[in-house]
């Protein structure tokens, strides 16, 4: 292995350095957007007839809303650096606690959706690309377009009505059956991992069983992107110079397609996964609402409904950070897999 670890290290350092201004801009955007929003965060969320003006002022002072915006902005940045996303006005919880409590479910759902999309999208995309312009290819492309065109909430409702209500194959909603997961200690706060940790396979299966419909719904949102991506990549790869070169060396067609075509066509998919994270998190808002999945998206809607700006700001900040960090990680993973990326 003559891989030069030096260049990899340099690449990672560069990529991390690139993420920093992006995070900064992101935080600024979130701050500006939520401070431009109408209404005073404190009085809006407490709605407070019964609250005296003094009490409101006190709360405002406690939350720091009485200080100049620029000072608040500084505090906000300083807090985020310490992973302090504020305290919800409507539920009195630390937003970081909310994230800890609900984040696991969203991670589970998003991962499930991603896995579903990959499991479906990659084979379909590969076949479609391999047999370009065949009936299967046409079907695959139309399938991708239709799944892309059907909004998550329509698909979710349909899936729920058909597979849960009418056929009864899957549970209606939620992450587990009642009571079943009560004894699982929260080690990672991702229920399914916690259950594996304590070897409670009944809970693991129960979560998986509950996960299928929402994950498929969310996965369908992005499966089109994968089909498309894989198909296009494979077509381009199979037209590629090194594929022709391999053929010229008399490599068997099957090996050409699999070793030179598929493998190379799949590399960019990793990058696309990075791009899909934002989409998955956005889609999870609607999916979590439809399937009553106890994640951050559903929580965010509740915070929005109660105009809990502090909590919304905290959650949105966190989600944005996640997106930036994941896309950074994906780039780094990509560099590990594809030696060219490192330059």
């Amino acid at each position, binding site marked *: 292995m003559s891989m030069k670890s030096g260049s990899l290290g340099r690449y990672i350092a560069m990529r991390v350095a690139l993420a920093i201004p992006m995070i900064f801009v992101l935080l600024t955007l979130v701050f500006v957007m939520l401070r431009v929003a109408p209404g005073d965060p404190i009085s809006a969320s407490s709605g407070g007839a019964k609250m005296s003006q003094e009490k409101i002022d006190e709360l405002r002072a406690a939350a720091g809303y009485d200080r100049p915006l620029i000072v608040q902005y500084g505090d906000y940045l300083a807090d985020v650096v310490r992973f302090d996303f504020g305290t919800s006005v409507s539920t009195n919880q630390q937003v970081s606690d909310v994230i800890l409590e609900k984040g696991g479910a969203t991670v589970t759902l998003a991962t499930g959706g991603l896995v579903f999309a990959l499991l479906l999208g990659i084979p379909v995309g590969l076949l479609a690309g391999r047999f370009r312009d065949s009936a299967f290819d046409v079907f695959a492309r139309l399938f991708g377009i239709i799944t892309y065109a059907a909004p998550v909430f329509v698909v979710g409702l349909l899936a729920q009505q058909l597979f849960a209500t009418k056929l009864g194959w899957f549970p209606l909603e939620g992450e587990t059956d009642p009571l079943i997961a009560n004894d699982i200690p929260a080690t990672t706060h991702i229920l399914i991992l916690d259950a594996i940790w304590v070897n409670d396979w009944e809970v693991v299966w129960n979560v998986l069983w509950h996960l299928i419909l929402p994950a498929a719904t969310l996965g369908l949102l*992005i499966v089109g992107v994968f089909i498309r991506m894989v198909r296009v990549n494979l077509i381009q790869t199979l037209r590629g110079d090194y594929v022709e070169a391999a053929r010229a060396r008399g490599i068997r067609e099957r090996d050409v397609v699999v070793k030179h075509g598929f493998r190379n066509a799949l590399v960019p998919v990793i990058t696309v996964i990075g791009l899909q994270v934002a989409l998955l998190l956005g*889609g999870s808002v609607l999916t979590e609402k439809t399937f009553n999945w106890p994640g951050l998206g559903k929580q965010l809607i509740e915070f929005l409904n109660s105009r809990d700006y502090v909590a919304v700001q905290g959650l949105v900040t966190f989600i944005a950070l996640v997106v930036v960090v994941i*896309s950074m990680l994906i780039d780094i993973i990509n560099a590990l897999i594809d030696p060219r990326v490192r330059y």
Partner: protein
Amino acid sequence: MANLPTELVAPTGPAGTAAPKRAGRGRLRRTFAPILEAHGLARFMLWTGIAITGFFVVIAVFAPWIAPYGYDAYESGGERFPKQESPGGDHLFGTTVQNFDVLSRVVWGARTALEVMVLAVVFSLFIGVLLGLLSGYFGGWLDRILVLVMDTLFAFPYLLLAIVAAFMFSDVPGGGIVTAALAITVVYIPQYFRVVRASTLSAREATYVEAARAMGAKPRTIIGRYVFSNVIQSVPVITTLNAADAIATLAGLGFLGFGIQPTEAAEWGYDLQRAIPDLGADMWWTATFPGVAIVLAILGFTLVGEGLNDVLNPSMRKRRIRTVVIPPIAKPRQVVTVAAMPAAVPAQGEAPAVEQTEDPATPGASETGDAPASATGEPQEEGK
């Protein structure tokens, strides 16, 4: 919903697009030629998409004439519509829990969707193009900041962005439609920004801009033209896909309850959300029709966008494989042997002596194989 971020037609280098000098009509013809030439799946997608979209636009534009009743009508001739009536009779698509006529709601919903979509596309086009031009033209710190901000917006979960934006703009005059349009606008500005900025940058560096500048033409004008010709190439795809997304986002906002209220306008997402209880109560029509409308409208625009992308993006254009059948050789090759070498560079008309093996007048007789084996030992099976 999502942007399909993969391989939209990116503006190519200067050679990729029509030269700015070309007359507008020629450019248009060039732009549309591929559409007319499209074939296969691209053609199917394009024309199906155009048909669906056209249907949608016609319904939206002529909603007042098409819809049997107003979007908030609950009675006709003093007689109240029945509640949750199944389709048939006076109400082809049935009625809702609010005594609305579903058909009318769906038809008027098309108009709402179109209004929001057009506003959102126009806003984001305008702002995105303006910022892209500024950024690409002036460069420097303005460019760097704008790029960073746009990249950040682009990376953001778009639905979250739209929801937050919907809150930001909830007091904007013009009501729910403008609010929704603005919320969606925020999401799509970065896409136009990117395209226009890239075009502007490459235009700035293009040699003919240098030349034009040297000749005293205003670079701004040149860039404007150049960018325009690029924009006109890539924007249709982005715009149609964005239009699809706009409908989906609007419906998503409505579905979550952050959208337009029923007395303000008919909106599919809201209607669908309100129809969920009906769905469980065997009243399929209140959810089905708005649901189908949402999917169809999005599908129509997506198909147009995908079809356009296929057509305009040559690398993805379907190669129609035409198999060739090679006809038998009509006239076999004649081989003649000459005895003497011609002059090194023979002048015209000057010919070396020829030892003619075949009568040129009767080429048919000069069948293959008849050519005498040459001294050089050339193969015998000529012309076989």
